[in-house]
């Protein structure tokens, strides 16, 4: 397997892709704006001294709708890809997915409880209703992951294989509980639940955005300190210990960062699959498994790909909108199969 690009080229390419994705994501939609106007309006929003004549509409659309949506896409894509890197490192398997430790299904369960429970009891005040959903999803993800981690521990050591199996069992349990809620739900809540499970950046607002941005920045700042330790972990747990790595601490950090990151992403945008699985794998094919390159490159690639997928979701059936989870699955699933077949050859 030859590497295609040097890290520097990779970062330049991904940086350019990311800028392009941001630009298109700001410009295109039900009301498409001229690219130049988009650029000028965006610069004005950032405080650049540009004449605002004729930009009022562009500024309004950008400021109120497209900018929060784009930021949400960047953060969700980045943090999902980063969590994928963490999980593939933890399980030392290039085909591992952030969902393995139960965080996605836990978040789905939390959201189902919030949606269906909220509609049944109906006593949730308008002001906190949107936060309640995100909070329940976040806590659900964190709770199930904590349980999986707990089940994987024996004699002060974490057994990754046991964690994997516990993750599968708890994912099945959480999914069937979500199924039960689906059965109990009335038509309106059923629709909400379904759309939430398919994921969407629609309705992004700054209120929903800032907790996720905070978590993304935290995780993105924390994990790079462990890039070398993650490289050593790929050799095997005991080999990493012999190289002086605190393996138990590292595993704890990886699980916690993933739970935090994926929990916040799912809470903000629903279930979006395959980004965490495919992006790190793709980056690895381009420039190798070294986490010092892999991690920042995956953030950039994940953010760009999610924005592009969101563009497809917005434009494919315009003015209607596809759930983004469908788009990522349509791209991700065949790619995953391709990787499987390629590995066998």
């Amino acid at each position, binding site marked *: *397997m030859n590497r295609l690009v040097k890290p520097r080229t990779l970062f330049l390419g991904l940086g350019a892709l990311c800028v392009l994705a941001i630009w298109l994501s700001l410009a295109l939609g039900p009301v498409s704006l001229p690219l130049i106007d988009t650029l000028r309006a965006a610069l004005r929003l950032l405080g650049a001294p540009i004449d605002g004549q004729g930009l009022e509409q562009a500024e309004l659309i950008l400021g109120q709708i497209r900018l929060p949506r784009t930021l949400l896409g960047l953060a969700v894509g980045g943090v999902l890809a980063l969590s994928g890197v963490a999980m593939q490192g933890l399980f030392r398997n290039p085909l591992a997915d952030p969902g393995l430790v139960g965080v996605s299904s836990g978040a789905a369960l939390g959201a189902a409880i919030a949606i269906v429970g909220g509609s049944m009891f109906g006593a949730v005040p308008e002001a906190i209703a949107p936060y309640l959903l995100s909070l329940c999803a976040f806590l659900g993800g964190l709770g199930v992951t904590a349980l999986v981690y707990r089940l994987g521990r024996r004699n002060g050591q974490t057994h990754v294989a046991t964690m994997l199996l516990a993750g599968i069992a708890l994912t099945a349990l959480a999914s069937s509980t979500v199924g039960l809620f689906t059965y109990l739900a009335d038509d309106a809540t059923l629709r909400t639940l379904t759309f939430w499970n398919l994921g969407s950046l629609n309705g992004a607002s700054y209120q929903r955005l800032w907790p996720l941005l905070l978590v993304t920045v935290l995780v993105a700042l924390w994990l790079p300190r462990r890039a070398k330790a993650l490289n050593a972990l790929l050799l095997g747990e005991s080999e990493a*210990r012999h190289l002086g790595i605190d393996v138990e601490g590292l595993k704890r950090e990886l699980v916690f960062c993933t739970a935090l990151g994926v929990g916040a992403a799912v809470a903000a945008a629903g279930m979006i699959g395959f980004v965490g699985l495919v992006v790190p794998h793709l980056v690895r094919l381009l420039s190798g*498994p070294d986490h010092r390159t892999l991690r920042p490159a995956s953030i950039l690639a994940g953010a760009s790909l999610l924005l592009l997928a969101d563009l497809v979701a917005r434009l494919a059936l315009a003015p209607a909108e596809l759930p983004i989870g469908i788009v990522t699955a349509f791209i991700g699933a065949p790619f995953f199969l391709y990787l499987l077949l390629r590995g066998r050859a």
Partner: protein
Amino acid sequence: MLRVENLHVRRGGKEVLAGIDLQLLPGQVLGVLGPNGAGKSSLLGVLSGELAAHQGRVLLDEQEMAQWPGAERAQRLAVLPQASSLDFAFRVEEVVALGRLPHQSGRLRDAQIVDAALEAADVAHLRGRSYLALSGGERQRVHLARVLAQLWPGQAGHHLLLDEPTSALDPLHQHVTLQAIRAFADRGAAVLIILHDLNLAARYCDRVLLLEGGHPHSLGVPAEVLRPEPLKAVFGLEVLVQKHPERGHPLIIAR
């Protein structure tokens, strides 16, 4: 100095090591021999801190093994396991460079050491190749280069533990590898090596420990330990022992 006193180890309720007293000496290669299941790998596991002793103590520089901070221990003690499960497409030199993780010796010095270790394990020609594209024996030599790099150039106070480093190697590379390990010890490092080949042990080891069912059967210089009686007792194998015509060390031939 790495040493164990009155070591007893249990695994799954069964005592796999009992009454082991052992000291690794600087500048010496200690070979550990014994049939399958004799406790060789368990001994290496305890010495490397991976397995807990049920009774007895493991001391590295007169301090309990478990009390060493990870990185400081890794600067004194390197371990080569029997098999590796690396499943990512690192380049050969990247795998070897992982051995430099416990050190802050700088990029330049690390690069020199990686080069030297690649040469020592005779894998310098594999530079740039993906680890996953290598054969089993080549992978084994890459990992040997990695642990050599971890302690390079090897000096008194360094300890190297190797679990069957020659198991997948062709005859030439069995000798190349053991010569590199021998050179490491000659520079002052203490080496423990698990071997199955009696003649390799006879040629390259300063001392040999024969293990039988978790008990030490005999410990001494090769000429003393690798005799027909102990080998018959431990392995159940009838052998002839002659002098190597050129080198003089024992040459063991199955009857």
